[in-house]
Each structure stands twice: as structure tokens, then as C-alpha cells.
């Protein structure tokens, strides 16, 4: 394992440059954690969301109860039920959320079914999660009473639910507002991490590969009795260890900042997603490292690839703000799929197989990148050996 050891000696001689990226990332992550002050009750009242309430059901006690509940916690604005008008309202932010009560909703509830409320929202709006949450809570409470108390009258049900929710709401809402902010921060942390990991891996891997690919040194190594296969294997192992180490260093602050959250399903999803991204970034770095010949080209490549892909993939700017052409181009980078997954994870409240499907599909896409780039690197290495 002489080459494996040399790998890390070469890396450690160039540690300063790599550490700059790590330090910048960690300080930004820390700064991010401290800037946001939790919203107090006063600011919460200001932050009441404008919503549209549309009822296709009868004017039942249950519908009235739901409307009352929403009135307390949001501003119901009056917009007529025409597709175009509703779309305009969302677009001009007159309303951020639309709830539609389907026909037979009240009936369904009393029969013990779980009819769904339809909702539409501005995709990027943080209120979406908040409103989803609020409606879920209402429906869950209703369901809880129905299943436990069986034949209960409409009026009684609505009254019980209302008092029940009233007690909890203020606390819950402040919590969820805070949670909302934290949620965004975590997503941002992991999105931004893709840039730092990518940059560090390209720089680190290229540094070593350029050294070992120098013609004189390569020839000299070929004279030794260590098989080429073993030599390459040691270098690949070095690269993998280096990537894992980088990933660990990058995720470590998240455990310090977010503590127990990292052990929830959401936290673990972020971790798995970032690990898979790291694999893809490594395989791209390995390819680049075998193409580049000089150190000067290396920092250029790190900037273009890491910064460029981060920029067009929505690391710094939310993906929804990017034009569709940009997004199409970005979809040829693993960063795009990684960020996309992070955003999905961030918006998730419950973790069903159905809901996680897109996340896992994106992971597969990212792994696909890894395999493709690695194969290209292999072909390149093989071709070089033959052409000598």
C-alpha cells in the first residue's frame, strides 16, 4: 500500500487550498444558523397567509367549522371560482393557497372515510408547508373524534375539534414557523455543501492524479514490480477514502448545528443524498484528473465545474427561479438532481414510499452519472496504455 500512502502525503502537502473551501463552507453554515431569529407572536400575526376557500359541498356544520378554523389562522380572501382568476391570484400573490372542499366531503367524514381536501399553492411559498400542516392537523383531529366517539353529532364534533385545536394552535404555530425556518436552513446547508464537496474533490483528486500521471514518474512506476492493476487500485482506494473523509468533514457541522434532527428520517435522507452525490462528484473528479495535465488548468476546472454546476442547478438561487433552458442544461449535472431531491426532502411531512419515490429516482440518476463518468475514465486510461 505504498502508493496509497503516497496518495495521502501528496494530498496533505496541498491541504491548505482544500482547507480554504472547508473553512468557508463551515463558517457559512455557522453564520446561516445564527442569522435567523425565531418569529415571535407579533410577527406571526402579520404573517397570516392569504388563502382562498372554495366549497363544492353542502353548507354543512363541518364545512362551517373548517372555514371558521381557517379564518382564525389565515386570511380568507374572496376570489371567484374561475380557473383563470385563481391562477392570477396565485401569480400576483393575492392568495398563496387555495383549499377546495370536494362534494360529499362532510358525508364522507361521518361515514368514517378520509376524503381529501384539494389544495393548490405557489410551489416556492413557505406557506404551503405551513398550510398543509394546518389542514392535516384539522383532519386528523376530526378523524380522531370520529373513530373514538363513533355516533357524534355534527355540531358536537365541530365544537370539540375547535376547542381542541384552539388550545394547541398558538404554541404549535410558533413552533412550526420556527421549524419552517430551520427546515429551509437545513436544505440550504445541504445544497451549499454540494458546491464545497465538488470543489474539494476536484482539487484534491486532480492534484494527486496529475502527480501520478506525470510521464517521468509514471514510467518510473512502470519499472517497479507492482502490477499496474494494483497500482491503479491503490489510487482508486485513495480517492474513495479521500472522498469519504471529505464528506464526513462536511456533514460533521450538521450534527453540531442540528443535533438530533440528523437522526430523524429527514436528516438521514439528507445524509444519504449527500453521500450519493459525493460518489458522483468523485467519479467526475477522477475523470477530470485523468484528463488534465497541469495544476493551472486544475483550479480553472474546479471553478467551472463546481461553481458552474452549482449555479445553474439552484444551489445559490432557488431552482424555480431559473429559466427552463438553464434547468435543462443543469439536468446534465448531478448537482441538479441532488438539489432537487433536497428540496423535495425539505418539503416532506410524512415519509411514504409514494412520496419518497422521486427522491430515490433522483438518487438513481446521480448514481448513473457516477457510473457513466467512471466508465469514461476507464476507457481513457485504457486507450492511453494502448496508444503508447
Amino acid at each position, binding site marked *: 500500500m505504498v502508493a496509497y500512502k503516497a496518495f495521502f502525503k501528496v494530498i496533505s502537502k496541498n491541504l491548505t487550498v482544500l482547507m480554504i473551501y472547508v473553512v468557508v463552507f463551515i463558517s457559512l453554515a455557522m453564520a446561516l444558523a445564527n442569522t435567523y431569529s425565531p418569529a415571535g407572536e407579533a410577527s406571526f400575526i402579520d404573517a397570516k397567509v392569504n388563502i382562498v376557500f372554495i366549497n363544492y359541498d353542502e353548507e354543512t356544520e363541518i364545512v362551517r367549522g373548517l372555514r371558521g378554523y381557517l379564518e382564525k389562522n389565515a386570511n380568507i380572501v374572496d376570489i371567484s371560482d374561475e380557473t383563470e382568476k385563481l391562477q392570477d391570484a396565485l401569480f400576483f400573490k393575492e392568495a398563496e393557497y387555495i383549499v377546495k372542499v370536494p362534494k360529499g366531503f362532510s358525508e364522507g367524514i361521518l361515514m368514517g372515510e378520509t376524503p381529501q381536501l384539494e389544495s393548490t399553492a405557489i410551489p416556492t411559498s413557505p406557506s404551503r408547508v405551513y398550510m398543509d400542516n394546518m389542514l392535516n392537523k384539522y383532519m386528523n383531529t376530526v378523524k380522531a373524534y370520529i373513530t373514538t366517539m363513533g355516533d357524534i353529532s355534527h355540531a358536537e364534533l365541530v365544537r370539540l375539534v375547535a376547542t381542541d385545536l384552539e388550545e394547541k394552535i398558538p404554541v404549535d404555530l410558533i413552533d412550526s414557523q420556527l421549524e419552517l425556518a430551520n427546515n429551509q436552513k437545513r436544505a440550504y446547508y445541504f445544497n451549499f455543501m454540494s458546491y464545497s464537496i465538488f470543489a474539494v474533490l476536484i482539487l484534491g483528486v486532480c492534484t494527486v492524479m496529475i502527480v501520478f500521471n506525470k510521464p517521468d*514518474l509514471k514510467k518510473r512506476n512502470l519499472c517497479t*514490480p507492482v502490477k499496474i492493476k494494483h497500482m491503479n487500485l491503490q489510487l482508486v482506494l485513495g480517492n474513495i477514502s479521500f472522498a469519504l473523509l471529505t464528506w464526513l468533514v462536511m456533514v460533521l457541522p450538521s450534527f453540531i448545528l442540528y443535533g438530533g434532527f440528523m437522526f430523524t428520517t429527514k436528516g438521514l435522507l439528507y445524509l444519504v443524498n449527500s453521500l450519493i452525490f459525493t460518489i458522483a462528484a468523485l467519479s467526475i473528479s477522477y475523470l477530470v484528473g485523468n484528463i488534465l495535465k497541469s495544476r493551472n488548468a486544475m483550479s480553472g476546472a474546479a471553478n467551472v465545474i463546481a461553481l458552474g454546476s452549482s449555479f445553474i442547478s439552484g444551489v445559490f438561487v432557488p431552482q424555480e427561479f431559473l429559466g427552463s433552458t438553464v434547468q435543462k442544461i443543469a439536468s446534465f449535472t448531478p448537482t441538479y438532481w441532488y438539489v432537487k431531491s433536497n428540496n423535495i426532502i425539505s418539503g416532506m411531512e410524512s415519509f411514504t414510499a409514494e412520496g419518497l419515490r422521486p427522491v430515490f429516482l433522483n438518487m438513481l440518476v446521480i448514481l448513473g452519472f457516477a457510473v457513466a463518468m467512471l466508465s469514461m475514465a476507464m476507457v481513457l486510461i485504457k486507450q492511453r496504455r494502448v496508444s503508447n
Partner: protein
Amino acid sequence: MVITVKNLVKRYDDLIALDHFNFEVKEGEIFGLLGPNGSGKTTAINCILSLLKYDKGTIEIYGKPMSPDAYDLKRNIGIIMQNVAVFEELNVYENIDYFCGMYITDKKLRRQLVEEAIDFVGLRDFRKFYPKKLSGGLLRRLNIACGIAHKPKLIILDEPTVAVDPQSRNNILEGIQRLNKEGATIVYTSHYMEEVEEICTRIAIMDKGRIIATGTNDELKGMINSGEKLTVEVLKLEHGILEGVRGLPNVVSAEFYDNLLIVKSTKGKNNLVALLDYLKTKNISVGKIYSEPPTLNDVFLEITGKELRDQL
């Protein structure tokens, strides 16, 4: 036979770098490959090490065909490349340890070998230095230490003394002789004939990808006509004397300038005595007298019609 190269042909596009190249290296020799720049020494070494593909010919080391996967053969070879091949990121000790480690897996033995190699090339005071901080000569010594630390049976050195100060050069030449005494077979390429003459037990002279003569120092000199070069200090040379000297037996040429009479003669006995006798009869008083045997340059000159020195 340690190395046997037969009819080796190597082309770079339309340039024929090696043209039916033949040579053999025997156990225990210091074999010198002498040739001007661009004559194909490095190309030959790279082919022997299977670093280059060649168009024709066979190469055997210790009686076995050499190939890129002849790892058993590679284990016994120490190689010092013309271009210094070390890691900039590793210091002197670590570099030697790296290359030694490619051959020797036992850690304890390796540590001992690395220390020996450091002492061998005289880099003890520099063991923590990085290559960038070493002078050209010290860097060459490091390059050598990396190649010999594992105590190979066959050591190939490609111009190890290029651009090296006299102190390092002597250190390197002495070292090579010591390695040879300890039992290693040495292949040494150079375009410095003095070095080759000094340390090599057998020499092949090459030009334009071909071996033009092989033999010991004396054998090579025996192949040519010119015997010795006589230099005599005289104050003045009367008219006609120079012609008289040229008429002496065995004399090939005679020149006079800067108060020096330079006479080249073919091999023969008593050339110097004959010359001095002749000068005495003409009443010419002589100062200092030198007699030099022919050099490898004379050999090269006589075979190729050009000076080896001019090619450098």
C-alpha cells in the same frame, strides 16, 4: 548473460531511432553505452525496460524475455532515469522509502535499506529536504538513491551525471563502482567519454541508433590506427623540420603552434624516442614532453569521421 538485445529496431514515425541494435551485458560488468546526444541511448534503455514498444528485435534479461508484465525481472532491476523522477510532495526520506517500498514489503528491512541508501549517496544532512530545495547534483543523487535502495542485481543508469557539479559527479562515479564491487551488474549510458573510460569495464559506442564498436577500453583503442599523441615544447622550429618530422616512420600528422609540436602517430614502439632523436640531431632543445594514448574520441573520430566532442 544479464541482458541480450538482438536486432532491435525502433521507429518514431519516419525517424529510425534504433537500427538493428545489438548488445550483450555480462554478469558483473560495468557496461558503458557511449554516444552523442540523440544517438538513441534513452530509447534503447526504454525499450529494454519495456516502457516503449519497438518494431523488431528481441530483448532478454537473465535469459527470459522482457515484457511489460515480467514483474519477476523488474524486481531485480534498479533504474535511474535520465529525467529525475521523484515526488515533489515527498521529502528525501519519503521518496526513497516510496520507491524502495515498491520492491521491499518488509518494513524493518526497508527502513534499514533506505537509511543505507541515504548514506550511500551522502544525503544524510538532507533527509527531510523536499526535492525543490535540493541543488541539481543533490537531486541526481536522490534519483540514484531511489533506484538502488532495494539492492538490485542489475542497475541501469541513464546519464546520471548530466548537469552535475564535480563533487556530486565524483560521488556518483565512486558509488557506481562500489555497487559493482558489491556484486551488481551495471549498465551506464553517457556522452562523457572520460567518465565511461574511467569506470566502465566494457563499452559500446553508438551513433545514429547503431552500435559502431564494442569492447574494453583497450580493445576499442586497439581497433584504430592512431596510437599516441606526442606533445613537445620547443621554442623555435626551423623551416623544413616539420616536414622532416612528418617523414619519420609511423607519424600520421605533425603540427606546430603556440610553441608546441603535436605529433600523432600510429601504433608502434619507440615513437617518442625516434622523435626526440630526430630533434636532437637537428640541435633543437626541447622543454616539456607529453605522450598521450588515444582517447575514445579518436576511436569515434576514426569510425564515424566526426568528433564525438563536436556532437555534444
